[in-house]
């Protein structure tokens, strides 16, 4: 079936270091969304990418959608404690209403 692989599963960083998570789909996506889930919380929408090669920035967060619309990445510059949580990508295939979710990357700030 259709899958979205997300790596790494965990990333431990020192505060101030950068963080990146990658998603790769087995099929071409019509669009991809990114969500953040804080510990004990629910997913919160960050952004949606629709166009091939699209790059969007939100302050320290940079989102990219690959040219083939099969992969995407989220990069956080100079992480802060408020960035802690699990970041999920969720892709839509064709006109299929369901989103296919990656397993998430957990951002952990080293003490």
């Amino acid at each position, binding site marked *: *079936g259709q899958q979205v692989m997300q790596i790494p599963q965990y990333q431990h960083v020192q505060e101030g270091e950068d963080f990146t998570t990658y998603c790769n789909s087995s099929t071409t996506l019509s669009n991809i969304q990114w*969500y953040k889930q804080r510990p004990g919380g*629910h*997913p919160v929408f960050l952004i*949606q990418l629709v166009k091939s090669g699209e790059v969007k920035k939100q302050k320290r967060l940079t989102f990219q959608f690959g040219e083939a619309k099969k992969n995407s990445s989220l990069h956080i510059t100079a992480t802060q404690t408020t960035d802690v949580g699990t970041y999920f990508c969720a892709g839509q295939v064709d006109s299929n209403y369901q989103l296919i979710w990656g397993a*998430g990357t957990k951002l952990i700030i080293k003490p």
Partner: protein
Amino acid sequence: DAGVTQSPTHLIKTRGQQVTLRCSPKSGHDTVSWYQQALGQGPQFIFQYYEEEERQRGNFPDRFSGHQFPNYSSELNVNALLLGDSALYLCASSFSSSVLGYTGELFFGEGSRLTVL
């Protein structure tokens, strides 16, 4: 403006029992999707309701059923509970645009944590 509300927040059931979870979507939203999230995993799509009908269904058995009411609120029913049904059940609301097949931003509730003993 209330966001997505779900009830109950926590519940404990035993194997074989039935459970009903409820969701009220964000004001202005007409579409409700249900997800199951096991610990440490991403959400898994159960089904989506629009115009009081199940519009799309994920890979879940018939023990999982739902309903959407005229006021857009929704219920998720799970029959014959199994230990493996223990999870966080998330309701997400959205607005269905005129673009066929388009899924926009989802707004999630806090979830209902189900424990099956």
